[in-house]
Each structure stands twice: as structure tokens, then as C-alpha cells.
């Protein structure tokens, strides 16, 4: 891994304001913020590991555990809420037997909530990996999950 991290570092200057972009790049690379990468970043930017955890835990984007194969994100924006987004989340928690923020034991799915995907006019919306599915219902969603292995 150190080599991969080195390649990432090459793209960024050694300045504290580069911390968030570096963390984003690390997460893109490994899927999450690994403990080792924090050590490397700390050395590279000359800021404490504590500070890095302080910043990364503040933002919703960063995760500290390995992700599953597919990410399921339920939009809970206002429009989606008014049109039943919360029910979709509950149904997923039930069907996948995990709570929001967790990964299924078989590592097939991650379940997350997002504040808003900006597709409000087509609510309720669920995002699986990069695809956004609009006008979702409990039944359509359950069918849809079967397509993902």
C-alpha cells in the first residue's frame, strides 16, 4: 500500500488544506480510510493523526470500515420524505437485516442514508452504486435488489 499512497501524495502539495482532497482520494482508492493511510497522511502533511481523525469524522463522506460490493443509498430529502423515503429505508433494514450505516455480513450491500440527491422531482429516489432509481416503491426496490450480486 505505501506505493499507492505515494502516488496519491504526488498529486497534492504538502499543505494542511490538502487534507480533505487527500482523504477523498484515499477513500476512492481503498473504499475507506484505512488506519495505515492515516499514519502516512500524518507524516506527509505533518499534522497529528488525531487531527486527521477529527476532520474526517466530522464529514459524512468518510468511512472507516471496508465497504461492501454495492452501496445502497436511500435519499431522505424533504421531497423523498413526504413521498415515503423513510419506509424504503425501513424496508431495506428489514430485508438486509442491518441498520443504516452497516454492511451486510456477506459484504453484498452497504446501506446508507443521504440528505438529498437532488432528484427531488422524481422522488422517492434510491441510489445503488452509481445508478439513481426514481419513483421507487417498496416492491420495485425489492425486485431491484435481486439484480445486484
Amino acid at each position: 500500500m505505501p506505493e499507492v499512497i505515494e502516488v496519491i501524495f504526488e498529486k497534492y502539495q504538502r499543505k494542511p488544506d490538502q487534507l480533505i482532497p487527500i482523504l477523498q482520494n484515499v477513500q476512492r482508492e481503498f473504499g475507506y480510510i484505512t488506519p495505515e493511510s492515516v499514519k502516512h497522511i500524518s507524516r506527509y502533511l505533518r499534522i497529528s493523526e488525531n487531527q486527521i481523525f477529527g476532520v474526517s469524522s466530522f464529514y459524512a463522506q468518510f468511512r472507516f470500515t471496508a465497504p461492501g460490493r454495492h452501496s445502497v443509498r436511500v435519499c431522505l430529502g424533504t421531497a423523498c420524505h413526504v413521498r415515503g423515503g423513510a419506509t424504503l429505508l425501513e424496508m431495506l433494514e428489514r430485508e438486509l437485516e442491518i441498520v443504516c450505516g452497516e454492511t451486510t455480513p456477506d459484504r453484498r450491500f452497504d446501506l446508507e442514508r443521504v440528505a438529498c440527491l437532488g432528484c427531488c422531482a422524481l422522488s422517492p429516489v434510491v441510489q445503488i452504486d452509481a445508478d439513481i432509481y426514481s419513483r421507487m416503491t417498496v416492491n420495485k426496490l425489492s425486485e431491484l435488489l435481486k439484480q445486484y450480486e
Partner: protein
Amino acid sequence: MNKLKKKITSAKKKWEGIENNKEPIVYIGAASCGRAAGALELISETEKFIKENNISARVIQVGCIGPCYLEPLVDIKMPGQPRVSYSNVNVRTLNNILKSQLLEGVPFTKAAIGNFGSSAFNGIPPFYELPMLKPQVRIVLRNCGLIDPEDIDQYLAMEGYQGLMNALEMSPEDVIGVVRQAGIRGRGGAGFPTFKKWTVCRNTPGEQKYLICNADEGDPGAFMNRSLIESDTHAVLEGMMIAGYAIGASKGIVYIRAEYPLAIERLKTAIKQMKEYGLLGKNILGSTFNFDITIKEGAGAFVCGEETALIASIEGKRGMPRSRPPFPAISGLFGCPTIINNVETLGTLPNILRNGAEWYNRFGKEGNRGTKTFSLVGKIRRTGLIEVQLGTTLREIIFDIGGGVQKPFKAIQTGGPSGGCLSEEFLDLAVDYESLASAGSIMGSGGLIIMDEDTCVVDVAKYFLDFTQKESCGKCIPCRVGTRHMVEILERITHGEGVPEDLLTLRTLGDTIKKGSLCGLGQTAPNPVLTTLRYFRNEYLEHIKDGLCRAVVCKDLIEYRVIKEKCTGCQSCVKACPTGAISGPRSEPHNLDKTKCIKCRSCYEICRFEAIAGDAIVIRTAEKRS
């Protein structure tokens, strides 16, 4: 400058070629919302069709034109004919449309919604005469859905970068003067006069100044900024350059949500094109103006929409606001004078500089000049992105543009989580900064959420408070502890465990949080609760005293039952129930096991007996509590 003028001439020629096309052109709206509705599949299907039938035709990806409820939209322009727009296209209708238009040369009128000519064509009305579009005034959205945002030449053909060229021929002070005369106020929500903020920054000494475009659109229910960036990327970037020139900044930063990958992609493409055309870098267009634009991706924190928190985030810290003064215009990013403008403000600037302040003054009203974009969502017939003059009434927006509500109207939430819920009596309120504030709401960035009688206002208030509570950075106590306490009370009320004193506690807490919080997040967080308490007090009391949720939303107060007399045993609810709570053989009344029921509403939605949804399945709110 001459080099760019040459480019403009050739761009216009290129555009004329599109206007007077010799081969058919298929335009497909492929912004995020179009894609969510299936636009990408339509693009590949169209390309396949063109290849299979061996015709020469072009496919152009355009942005979002606004009426999202009609997505996906496909337009076709045949040589010598006006561009015809088709709505709600799926793969099957697409094939019919393509066959009819491309092969037979006649519009497929069954799916056509409008044409872009000035009069009806084959019985298809002009697009801009559609009820949703007719009352709108499109300044910021003028190019959205019409041009390919990834082609700088198309933007140039639309008089793009003309505003910048005009600005560069003036002194920065004169540019500020034009903006002052135009009277534009910040479209991010607070409505602070743009020129005032700029003047402070301009007059502050400093080697390095920054111009930040705030594209951290975190409001749930709002997507104006995303649509604008995705559909007319260059307009926002041109606005940044004009602002940067006016305040004396040499560095521009777009701070944008990572949740908007397509917008980020398009920004990157546009910045690359600008460099190729000499619009970024040193001595831009032969002037003394130097400017560069970089992109910073947000990392998911609603509070970062607040100026000082946004700055902290760019500096690589936790996105926590600090107290002001000093204002960012004096001491902002890395301690340098910094101006943060909203996407929409920046997107408007090129138009003002191109057409002049007097022209802009024709729109809106005294003190509230110009137009505002809104995202119209919720329980409304025509959802989408709209732009109207300031001073338009809520009634016009909801009923004339939005087509009204299917069920009786209950409330409208303006300004997202920081705004308030207004009841029916405010329908004739003119939408401007002051009127909304006097009603206890705010303009905010422009999310309008329409609610009908199926929406529970207590639940909505809880939803917003829960959101702001989770997004509170936790720095100051009124916001951190106060909002949490309010959520707990609201939780209790929605579970049917509220007490009458709760209402007073909510009000006192709300007032305290508003007064005592450090930043805009806390100062506005109680608004949804305070306004619903003011205008929908009865619904709170019904929850507390009668255990009744009249909108049948609060799950603890409702239960589902099968009406045996009406149930025909058609099995559709049995199939629809995700938990197997409904059972029973065909042709016999079904049973609903309340212990298994998760109250997901699937059975109610699918029950079609006697053609009325849910006729054989009723939702009853709990009996009066003892």
C-alpha cells in the same frame, strides 16, 4: 479579445448549422434528473436506431429544461421544421417517435408536448406556451435544456462571455456600479445586496483575494444549483470571472458537493475549455486581469453552506462556523479578503453585464429586482425547476405553474430546513425577501415543498428538526442541545405521548435557539416548528389530546385493517405485502396480521377494488386515548 471574437464568429456559424440543420438532430435532456429517469438508455437506443436504419442524424446531450415531471425529454429537429419535444419517453415510445420523425418525417403527435417555434406545428403547441412555462421569466435558465453544456462554442453562440468582455472594458469599480444599479441580492438565501459585499472586499487592501462559488447545495428538496451547473456550466464560471474581476481576486474556487458527480465532471470539462480559449490564466483577453479557477469537493456537511464553515472546510479543518465579524469579505480564506457568492447569483451576472442594469431592472419589483429559481417539489402535479420574477405570488407558482395539488392543499414550505411552513391564508403572498420574512419564513436558496392533506405537519417539523439536529456542528450549546431537546419532544408527540405543555416548551426553546446560536444553521433551525405551531396549532393538539394524526402519517397513531365486506380476495395486496402480513385464499376476504405489519402502505396503494385506492383496506387513526 480579438482572438475570442474570431472564435465567437465561428461558434455562431457552427450554431447556425445546427439551427438550419441539413440532417435530423435528436436532443436528449441528460442532466442528473433526466438520467435518473432513464435518459442514458434513450441515448444509446437512439444511436442504435440511427445506425440500424443507416440514416445520418446527430444526437446532442442537453441539460435540464425544467419540467422534471415530464422526464425523460427527447426533442427532435428535422431540417426545415421546428424542434419538437416529446415527454415521458420510454424505449418503446422512443422507437415509435424515431420511426415517425426520422423515417417518415412527421411528428409522433401522441407523445409530443410542445414545439420550439412561435406557433402551433401539426397541432403541437409552442413549448413556451405550456401552462408550466408561460408565466416564467427565464434569465438564469435561459440556456438550460437548449444547448450542450459541454460545448463551449454553443455557449459562445448564445452571447456567452459577452458579459465578461463588457466587464473587462470597464473599471472594476464601474462593474460594481452596474451590479449596484441592477439591484441584485444574494440568491443563497439571506438576500444581502451583492454590490455591498463586493465593495467591502474591493476596498480591503490585500495582495491575494479569493472568489468562492458556493455550490454546497445541502438543502434537502432543492436542486436549482445542481441543475444550473449541469445545464449551463459556463454561465456560472463566467459569473465567477466577472465577480473576481470586480473584487480584485486572482483565484476562484468552486466549493461543490461530492454528491453531484455529473456537475463536477462538467465543471472540469468547462474549465479545460476555458483554458484552451484563453479565458483563464494571465492577462485574460489582453487585459491586466489574471484569474484561475479550481474545484474543491465538499465532504458531506450541511453546515458548510455557511460562509465561515465553508472557509474552514477549504482550509482542511472541521467545517465549523466562527463568529463574525470579521466578515469573510475582510478576512476570509487563509485570512485573505474573500467573497462567497451563490451559484445562482453568479449565473445571473453575465446576463446583467451583457444587457445592462436597466434591462435587469425591468424584472421583479422595487427592492427585489430580478428573478429567482425555485425547485417545485412535493405533492404537486408539475414538479420541476422554475424561474419567476420576484413578487410573483405563491398562488401563481403553485396553481398556474405547478398545476395545483391533487388532494386539498395544506401547506407550503419555503426555504428548506431553515424556512417555514405557510398555510393556505398566505397563498396570495408575493414571494420576495421581506414578505416571506414577515410571515415567519425565508426565501432560502429556493426549495418549495408543497404539502397536501396527506402530509402531517408535525411529522414534517420533526423531519426538519431531526435533519438540522444531525447536521449541527455542535460548537454552540443552544443549537446542539436545544435542537436535540426539540426533536425529543416532537418524537413524543408523534408517538402519541405528548402533553399540552409541550407546545409552550417548544416555543420557548425555539426562540432561545434562534437568539442564542452562532450561525445561520441554529438561528433558523426552529423555523419549521415555530411556523407550524403558529399556523397549524390544531394538528399538534389533535396529536396530543386525541392521539389523532389526521394525515395518517404518524405510524404509532394509525393501524391498517382489511374491510372484510369490501375485500374480494383478489390477492393483489397479498402479493404486494413485503412482510407477509396479509394472507388468505383467493376469493375470500384476507386477514391482516397487525404484528407483522410495518405500515408501509403498499397494500393501501395497490388495493384497486372498485377502482378506488385502498377501498378495501382502510387506515384508521387510533381511537381516542383514555
